[in-house]
């Protein structure tokens, strides 16, 4: 029986939807692996598989806590080190075994008689203001050892409109909190689709800027302004002094929940690769001063990265599907970070 042209188009479309769903699932991206969270914005769905190829390549499964890490060891005799960070630590860009957290754990276990478990508590997009919230979610009140990861934009992230900073009369910081996440209704409406279809999720991410622009134009056209939550706090300019105050406050909050804290800093990508990137970032200066204020060891990787590049002509950011010297750490970057942290921990001692 001959098919009409509209039937042929319909079936051709169906064939392509299935075909591209398979291609994307196998080679490009998994469906959405996130769910909404009031405090953190979103979290990864525990025990769900993922495929990540936007930058670098990795495939794996989140642990039962919803982090890109192996399951935490539940043994009581295990010494635990928590690593708090953002996308640099969450690390979708290289295999989990090649991340600095895994390499650090391996090195520490080789050097120690006691079993050491380095636990990753990191998620892409987190700011330092979120670090105390992550620690709060741990079972037990005080962590033995916490490593805090910062990078060149961490200080600037504390001035994001979702971070509420209040001040005392004398100018000291009273509190830094994260504004509760307003549910993204648009995304929640299609949650079922993007959580089950790799094609839908990939298309949404790809065309999101265009969709956002279109929605903004539409909203402006019907004069429906989103209610901007009021922030009665006095707006502070981003200065070195103010940034240092904020970082000091964050580090103090962490110190209340951790016996030992180590702070480390990853420099701007390309600082050593492209000559026009400034070496000194405000975050780096402010963080160094804040760590000193709180008497915390501070590992600054700027010169380590620069010297490595000069000696080996090897860039530490960038992948074959991105530009070199940009973006997140590659395997060489992770090895260098692990080595630097390991040497510092050995120097300071585990206890």
């Amino acid at each position, binding site marked *: 029986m001959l*098919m009409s*042209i509209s039937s*042929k*188009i319909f*079936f*051709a*479309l169906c*064939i*392509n939807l299935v*075909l*591209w769903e398979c291609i*994307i699932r196998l080679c490009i991206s998994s469906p959405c692996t996130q769910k909404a969270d009031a405090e953190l914005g979103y979290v990864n769905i525990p025990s769900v598989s993922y495929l990540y190829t936007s930058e670098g390549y990795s495939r794996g499964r989140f642990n039962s806590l919803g982090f890109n890490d192996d399951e935490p060891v539940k043994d009581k005799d295990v010494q635990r080190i928590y690593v708090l960070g953002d996308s640099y630590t969450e690390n979708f860009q290289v295999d989990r075994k090649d991340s600095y957290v895994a390499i650090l754990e391996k090195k520490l276990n080789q050097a120690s008689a006691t079993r050491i478990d380095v636990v990753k508590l990191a998620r892409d997009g987190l700011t330092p203001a979120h670090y105390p919230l992550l620690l709060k979610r741990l079972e037990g009140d005080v962590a033995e050892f916490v490593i805090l990861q910062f990078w060149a934009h961490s200080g600037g992230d504390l001035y994001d409109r979702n971070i509420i900073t209040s001040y005392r009369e004398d100018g000291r910081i009273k509190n830094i909190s994260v504004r509760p996440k307003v549910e993204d209704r648009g995304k929640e409406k299609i949650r079922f689709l993007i959580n089950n279809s790799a094609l839908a999720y*990939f*298309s949404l991410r*790809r065309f999101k*800027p265009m969709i956002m622009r279109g929605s903004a134009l539409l909203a402006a056209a019907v004069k429906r302004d989103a209610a901007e939550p009021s922030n009665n706090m006095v707006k502070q300019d981003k200065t070195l002094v103010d940034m240092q105050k904020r970082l000091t406050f964050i580090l103090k909050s962490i110190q209340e929940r951790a016996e030992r804290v180590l702070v480390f800093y990853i420099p701007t990508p390309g600082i050593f*690769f492209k000559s026009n990137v400034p070496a000194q970032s405000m975050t780096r200066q402010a963080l160094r001063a804040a760590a000193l204020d709180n008497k915390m060891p501070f590992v600054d990787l700027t010169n380590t990265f620069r010297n490595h590049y000069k000696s080996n*002509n*090897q*860039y530490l950011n*960038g992948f*074959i*599907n991105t*530009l*070199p*010297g940009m973006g997140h750490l590659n395997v060489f970057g992770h090895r260098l970070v692990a080595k630097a942290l390991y040497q510092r921990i050995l120097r300071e001692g585990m206890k």
Partner: protein
Amino acid sequence: MILSSIDFIIFFFLLLLILNFAQKFVDDRKKDILIGASYFFYGYWNVKALLLVVFVSLGNYLFGELLSNERYRKKSVLFLSIFFNLCILGYFKYFNFFIDSIRSLFPHGADQLHSLKIIMPVGISFYIFQAMTYPIDIYQKRIESASLRDVALYISFFPKITVGPIATASEFLPQLKKPLALTKENLMAGASLFLLGLVKKSVFADNLAVFVNEVFDHAVLYDAWSILSATVAYSIQIYCDFSGYSDMAIGVAMILGFTLPVNFNYPYKATSVTDFWRRWHISLSSWLRDYLYIPLGGNRRGNIRTYINIFITFFLCGLWHGAGLTYILWGSYHGVGLVLHKIWSAVRINVSESPEHIARKLMKNTYGAMLVTYLFITVGWVLFRSSSVKDAAVIMGRMVTGAGGAHWIHISFYLIVPVCFCWHLLACQQRIKKQLVRFDTLLGLSCVIALVFSVLLLSPLDASPFIYFQF
């Protein structure tokens, strides 16, 4: 407006609606619609530059009228028309280059000379060359003079005005004498070609551009393997970019019922430099042969004069591509290559098993010849792509000396280059295209939709401009 943009898709869709509605109108009204659309298309970029197109159309139309009038000396009118067109091209494209060259040669004596702020109109090299063929073809009695409407449409026809193909007056104007009509067959054939061109440009060329641009712009940072890979990638990028655009232009013209000349014929299958120029930018090489090389004497005045004519033709070919030393050197490089190939073909070797005999055997071997030709062409692309002679020297130097540096080869190189080479070497591309890219079968429709998906999902969101737009 470029052919791969959303603006163009909307514009073309509206034009087809108007033309469909105007099916019952007389041909002159349809031509007026096409002229209006072409002026809108070109003026979308710059309205002032559109005035130049109108001026060129008027000028060449008048020369055509003078050539048809027995009262005037045809040769003088012809030279005047060539002078008119070349002056316009020379002013807008080469004036500043000429001034800068004099100043660099005579730094102290040329203080009074200043460059002008001249914006080079898009496509001027293409439409001037096309415009020139009108009076020349009349002079050579290939065509008769046409109406102002036909000449205006010929010069401004939007699918070909910005990046070609360069359709001569004798190729295009006779088509205007036939009734203009939209047919289903032309629509389907044109749409298939357009889609294939879009895939070549958006999926292949634009993805390779990410790699090529980074390495060529920062060559001192990368090692020899990265630079070599980027050079090979560029050879594929420029082919996919230019042939992709040509396919889109030919496809759009086909939908409207016009035939534009084929511009590419799998150029990396060429077994010699001469063969390459029969396959690459065919419309330009044909133009150069018919309107420059043959009038210079071609190969009719002895070997030495032939070699000189070939060199001059390709020197000017390089200059046509751009007002820059790298383009002139690139054109001269190809001129020398063509001359050497001509000499090589003429030489007879009597002693068997000599190195020359073995080399000749190798060259007769098709794949050997293709490889040698490809290497020759690709070395030339380094000159073509580099922003200066110094950069080209740095890139060539780093490749040849095996320089160290960061090693980075983008994934697009591994995915796209082998696919393109394999497709190039296949013998049955046309048959596969005809079977798979069609709108009347389920398999064909599935392939068409798959190609659309590939453009939507796999092309970089910040697309590179067409390489040949700058000429």
